[in-house]
């Protein structure tokens, strides 16, 4: 099977400091395989090396060591670039071009011309929800609209592999949902999507596989359900129409938080099935408001991971 992305010992050192340059390892021996058709979540806290990895894959920076391939060809190859799309983090385009002109130019780089080009640009702008404002200069666009234009330009060439660096950032909840739908649509079309995020919820809803990067090192990679850190470790039960003496009698007060008038949140451990507690409570006249699994958030996971890692400078070799 052809891999969509393969990195081998990919390492990047940056020189930091103004007078005496010393190397700083932004990425340390990353070896990663991403199969075609995967929606791959590349997760990690800010500064973990996600953007560095994406820049190396786009050959915006050159690796200190190691190699990277896309679709079986070395990165930077023009034929490879023809088949991929890329949305940078916080994208920015020209101030005085319109969205239409910008996308038209990019489409031209892929050899689209004439009516086909106009159709391609029109369809994509519709898809990302840019209306008549597509004829305005981009400097009049809000951050969220620029993000949408960025998505459109990443898809202009009907790419086989799409790289999205923090695609949700700068979007309102509605926009985030649209992007999620877009990614799922790309998946359904059989494309590979490689996206970075520091928000677990994004990954949960979309990814077939994830990798977690902390401090430039790959911590774990696999399907989300395989990653033990994210297993359900309990339940949160919210009920209403119940009184404290009832809860006290059931021995739940230790784990209960009062969140409103006759409204309580109860945390239950994983080995205590919520069905039983719920049925006991409903007998007393309580009503179920919500029942949610409790997982480690990505942040919790990061905090745990980072605390076990040395400060970056001491990891530098040579």
């Amino acid at each position: 099977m052809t891999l969509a992305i393969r990195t081998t010992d990919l390492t990047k050192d940056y020189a930091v400091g103004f007078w005496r340059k010393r190397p700083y390892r932004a990425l340390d021996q990353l070896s990663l395989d991403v199969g075609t058709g995967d929606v791959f979540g590349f997760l990690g806290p800010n500064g973990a090396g996600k953007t560095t990895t994406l820049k190396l894959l786009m050959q915006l920076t050159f690796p200190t060591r190691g190699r990277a391939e896309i679709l079986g060809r070395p990165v930077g190859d023009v034929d490879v670039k023809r088949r991929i799309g890329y949305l940078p983090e916080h994208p920015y385009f020209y101030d005085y071009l319109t969205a239409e002109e910008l996308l038209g130019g990019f489409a031209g780089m892929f050899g689209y011309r004439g009516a086909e080009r106009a159709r391609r640009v029109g369809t994509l702008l519709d898809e990302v929800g840019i209306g008549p404002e597509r004829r305005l200069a981009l400097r009049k666009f809000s951050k969220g609209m620029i993000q949408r234009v960025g998505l459109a330009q990443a898809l202009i060439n009907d790419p086989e592999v799409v790289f999205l660096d923090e695609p949700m950032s700068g979007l309102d909840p509605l926009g985030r949902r649209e992007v999620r739908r877009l990614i799922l649509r790309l998946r359904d079309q059989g494309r590979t999507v490689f996206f970075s995020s520091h928000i677990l919820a994004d990954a949960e809803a979309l990814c077939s596989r994830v990798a977690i990067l902390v401090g430039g090192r790959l911590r774990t990679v696999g399907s989300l359900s395989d990653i033990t850190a994210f297993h359900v470790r309990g339940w949160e039960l919210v009920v209403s129409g119940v009184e404290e003496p009832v809860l006290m009698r059931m021995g739940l007060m230790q784990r209960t938080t009062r969140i409103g008038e006759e409204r309580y949140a109860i945390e239950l451990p994983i080995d205590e099935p919520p069905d039983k507690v719920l049925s006991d409570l409903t007998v007393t006249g309580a009503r179920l408001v919500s029942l949610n699994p409790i997982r480690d958030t990505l942040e919790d996971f990061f905090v745990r991971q980072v605390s076990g890692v040395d400060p970056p400078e001491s990891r530098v070799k040579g």
Partner: protein
Amino acid sequence: MRTSRVVAIVAFNVFKESVRDKVLYNLVFFAVLLIATSLLLGKLTAGQEVKIIKDLGLAAISLFGVFIAIFIGIGLVSKEVERRSIYSILAKPIRRHEFILGKYSGLVLTLLVNVAIMSIALYLVLGYMSWTEAEEFKRAWDAPAADPAMLKAIALIFVELMLVTAVALFFSTFSSPILSAVFTFGLFIAGHFNADLKHFEGVVDSRVAASVARGWYYVLPNLAAFDVKAQVVHAQPVTAGYLGFTVAYGFVYIAMVLLAAMWIFSRRDFK
């Protein structure tokens, strides 16, 4: 095929950006300057209005062009890097040197349009002055008003602008706009004093210093060589040989600077 296509797209975007950024407004200023001066001169000076309009017109074509070349040139690449707009472009099927070539061509195109319009305006004003001037006074002119020889000076000004643009772009590939502006202005001024370096032995006794100065004469862009405004206005000959060698020198120097710019740019990390 693909190369020329992507270069043209990048170039055209530069042109569009600069037009919408009101760069060509300088043309209006130029026209007003020319017309106002020609009207005023008739009242202020005795004779030689045509010479003064030629001096002013050619100097303005060069000066405005230099300002555009430097102030847009220094931002051509560094601004894209600073604002990260370069990220989405370089992910497209374009090689880095093609990007540089496109950026350069775009600004040269802007300058070409600018110089062409200014030249036409200058010829129109001169043509009008010639038309309204009495025959016997025209005999006192060194050269006819709408003198085709002025095109020689304009052509060399344009090649000089191309060179200045290449230098600005070169600095733009690895330093900030402010530093690029300082470097480019420095080279522009040094390039005009350049002719003095060649005969430095007349100024200093030291043979070493004279040879060093002579070395610099060949290293620095010799911009003074592109200035034949005075010769043209006074109807002095500018030979085809001089013109040819100077233009060839300009193009080779531009090729050298652009190649260096591409080299640096193609190795650069975008952090």
